[in-house]
């Protein structure tokens, strides 16, 4: 039983780390804002749930596991909410997703808050 829980938790943690890295790579590599939203949700849901569940299994039943589950619950609520808020704000500000044919939507809006010329912080 002990080893079973151990193996299960290691699998969960490994999968969680994998999803966290994959989501972050997506945030870096995806071409536009709307696809990056999807990448973030991988980290926000898959990575968080798997990692925290794995850690809770590793900790055993007790205060630590309960705290981990509380963190999980709060991240589960706040993550999608803030993603929703970001997406809503971007949509309202005039940023439109491209259509399926890949035709450029009206992404560059004159009212767009951050001017495209502002290449801030080029490394």
């Amino acid at each position, binding site marked *: 039983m002990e080893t079973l829980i151990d193996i299960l938790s290691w699998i969960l943690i490994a999968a969680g780390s994998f999803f966290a890295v994959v989501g972050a790579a997506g945030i870096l590599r995806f071409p536009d804002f709307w696809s990056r939203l999807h990448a973030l949700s991988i980290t926000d849901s898959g990575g968080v749930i798997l990692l925290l569940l794995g850690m809770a299994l590793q900790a055993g039943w007790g205060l630590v596991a309960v705290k981990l589950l509380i963190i999980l619950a*709060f991240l589960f*609520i*706040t993550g999608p*909410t803030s993603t*929703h*808020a970001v997406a*809503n704000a971007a949509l309202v500000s005039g940023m439109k997703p491209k259509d399926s044919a890949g035709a450029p939507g009206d992404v560059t809006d004159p009212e767009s*808050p951050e001017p495209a010329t502002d290449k801030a912080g080029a490394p």
Partner: protein
Amino acid sequence: MRHHLILRVVTKLLIGSIMLFALYVQFHGDYSPGGGFQAGVIMAVAFIIYGIVFSLQDVQRVLPPWLVHKLSALGVLVYAGTGVVSFFTGYGFLDYAALSPHHPVHGQHYGIILVELGVGITVTGVMITIYYAFTSRTPVMDDEAW
């Protein structure tokens, strides 16, 4: 932010938890990390998020500015008052043994809880005061500045 239904519901859900966590940090501060300052900041965040998602008028109806100003003074008063009590019962200023003369160690414990409460009240009041002071002003900039 009147139309943000999801934000409003989630905020209502979270404010209670944030306040509860602030109280935990405040009164559990002698066992786990945290104390008056951190608890005060967290408590202030609970009110500030209400002010951000709803409106300044809403949060000021809950906690009017005059009350916040009194609160930030009250915390210092609680802290200094603890010292004055110990001072007038024949101990040194802020010597918490005065609070429980037969059992000085318990006195220290009571004193720490009182003092941290004072710090927490002050920090809450001050943070909310600064938030009110910043947000109740009309912005000076015009559209050209953007």
